[in-house]
């Protein structure tokens, strides 16, 4: 009996999007990164339909983190106070293709730092590394609205990816990202309908759909990864069916979420195996799961987890 042909009739594909701008395009980046482009489900059809290689963005925090488990902060211990040195280390030693600059320190409960601080950190990191940047707010609407527009302006022309905007808070950041020529992250709380709604809201303000990346909230392995997984699969299928409002590349916040899991961070749990290896394994396994469901950009933290996932991506894409 002959093996039948599989013929899929997908009409759409995931948008392709470029991050970073070199001097030819009005920026100062040494490299740019293209994400998205998949024209089939993950491993569906032939590898020519797989789109661009998923990419890892390594997190750099604007201020020294106080709550990082020892095994996570250890590889960064000499640079935690200097975002520029931190970013440089990520690029030079851990092969970061993108740096995600995360502004936790502006949060009212985590330092409450002001715009001057955020702007100078942005400038220093842009200076220190040549890779494209993601600029990610703290999640407090008021502070983000106050500070992220200034961060955006400081990186004008660099074609960064900036966010996040939500259903309830999208206007000011969408407007400034548009004005400064950045790409935008739309966020929804594990709800595919809200996810689409935020994209529509941003589009209504004139923001180009092909410059949007969606963030559907990430659940860590053991803590809801299956919700992110199925939403991403549904989003990919919607994109393939031609839904323009769902055809955006997907970003996942893997590092932060995975290291909240007690399986990753508990130092005192011998039944779960070696504490120094558990965290990186948990982070890597979370990332691998999300790749199976169509993640395009993974925000990650531990160098060991990053190298595991990078090897996997290079093998598969």
């Amino acid at each position, binding site marked *: 009996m002959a093996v039948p042909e599989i013929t899929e009739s997908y009409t759409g594909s995931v948008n392709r999007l470029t991050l970073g701008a070199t001097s030819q395009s009005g920026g100062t980046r040494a490299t740019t990164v293209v994400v998205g482009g998949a024209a089939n489900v993950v491993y569906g059809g032939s590898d020519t339909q797989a789109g661009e290689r998923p990419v890892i963005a390594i997190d750099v925090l604007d201020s020294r983190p106080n709550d990082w488990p020892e095994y996570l902060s250890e590889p960064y211990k000499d640079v935690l106070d200097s975002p520029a040195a931190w970013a440089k280390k990520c690029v030079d030693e851990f092969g970061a293709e993108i740096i995600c600059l995360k502004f936790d320190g502006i949060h009212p*409960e985590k330092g409450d730092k002001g715009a001057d601080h955020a702007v100078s950190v942005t400038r220093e990191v842009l200076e220190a590394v040549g890779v494209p940047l993601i600029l990610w707010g703290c999640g407090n609407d008021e502070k983000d609205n106050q500070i992220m527009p200034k961060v955006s302006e400081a990186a004008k022309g660099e074609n960064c990816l900036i966010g996040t905007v939500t259903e309830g808070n999208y206007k000011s950041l969408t407007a400034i990202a548009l004005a400064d020529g950045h790409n935008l992250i739309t966020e929804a709380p594990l709800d595919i309908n809200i996810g689409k709604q935020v994209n529509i809201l941003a589009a209504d303000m004139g923001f180009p759909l092909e410059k949007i990346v969606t963030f559907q909230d990430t659940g860590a*392995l053991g803590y809801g990864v299956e919700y992110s997984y199925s939403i991403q699969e549904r989003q990919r299928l919607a994109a393939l069916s031609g839904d323009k409002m769902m055809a955006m590349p997907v970003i996942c916040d893997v590092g932060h979420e995975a290291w909240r899991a*007690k399986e990753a961070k508990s130092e005192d749990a011998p039944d779960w195996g070696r504490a120094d290896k558990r965290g990186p394994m948990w982070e890597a396994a979370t990332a*691998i799961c999300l790749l199976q469901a169509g993640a395009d950009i993974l925000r990650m933290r531990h160098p060991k987890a990053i190298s595991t996932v990078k090897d*996997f991506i290079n093998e598969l894409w």
Partner: protein
Amino acid sequence: MALSGLEIFKLLPKTNCKECGKPTCLAFAMQLAQKKAKLEDCPHVSEDAKEKLAAAAAPPMQLVKFGNGDNEVQVGRETVLFRHEEKFYNPTVLTVTVSDKLSGEELNKRIEKINSLEFERVGQQIKVNAIAVVNESGSSEKFAAAAQSVKQGSELAMILCSDSPEAIEAAVSKTSDRVPLIASAKEDTAEQMAKISKDNKCPLVVKAPSIEALSQLSEKVKSGGVENLVLTLEDKSPRESLYNSTRMRVLSLRKVFRPLGYPTISFIQGDESEQVAAAASLICKYSNIVVVDAAEPEVILPLLTVVMNIFTDPQKPVQVEPKLYSVGEPDENSPLMFTTNFSLTYYTVESDVESSRVASYILVVDTEGTSVLTAYSGDKLNEKVVADAIKKSNVEEHIKHRKLIIPGYVAVMSGKLEETTGWEVMVGPRESATIPKYLKEVWQ
């Protein structure tokens, strides 16, 4: 694949005799297609039609069982490519290898170690549920002896891995009562392996270098009378494995291509990190049995958690029992907070309270497995529900104070809740992650 009403109609006698109770053969065919009628109701249907209809009604993927008693495992009979379409039914059997090069104390230690790979997560037990004995020694006697030791040292289901029919024969003769899965029959050993499988009523893995060759081999073995088959492709890189595994799943489910309508098994190679990556991806992408060499808990726990998460029924939120939980060893002055019985919500809160190192009580309120905001907007979480939970839990006997910390997202219910319960309501953080800070700074 299910036949349409018209396709079924073509197989019926088309006499409109009404003996089935329906006015016409076409009406009967339509009801059959919707599973509202049974074929037996038609007294005149031909044997040929019966066979065709039965074949079409068979599930597209075979169910295969191995092991015995409480440790029997079953794999296969999956119905969808994406879990959100329905759900994945039979969780991937995570298997760890034992080499037959080991003997004596070393062998027993390895078996013990695999036996101990059992964990409790979110109220459920998860564990490695099979052991693969691998014929690395090249000797039939050593292989049979190792299989015998595994049988004695472990209750887990067994997989016997050797390309040599003599070695398999020797090992099966010692272990057939445990119904091991035999791995594997190849083109040149298919007849001998099939005979062992048939004689001992053990399921069989068939192995070939390509999907095309595998289809032919499975057909051949099946026509020889062995129906409980598991499929594998030999010597594939993770990339080839994942693309092929996906193609095979599409062919078996969407095309109902019977020669590939069986569960699959993957043997994972590489260092620990490579094994975690390859195993996690193959659990997600359709391998029903995943065999790894790594036996360290830090490798196995994440993989078992992947199985648990991916095989969760997406239609049914996982719930925890609504009652009073203690974190650490709380006393009569410890804080009390409430959350919902959606397991993800509860375990996130529990984990954050734990990391605060402030011994606390968590009162879990029955919201039918929904999260805080969803429950509140659906009126499954209101002052009455919380007041009931306080009463039922007898928490008043455990603590002296009358202060209740509530999730920040439902701050709006504070007033009514104070009125109904007479307790002092303290509005906690919106995000669970800030609970430690809250307990340390505000609770005092």
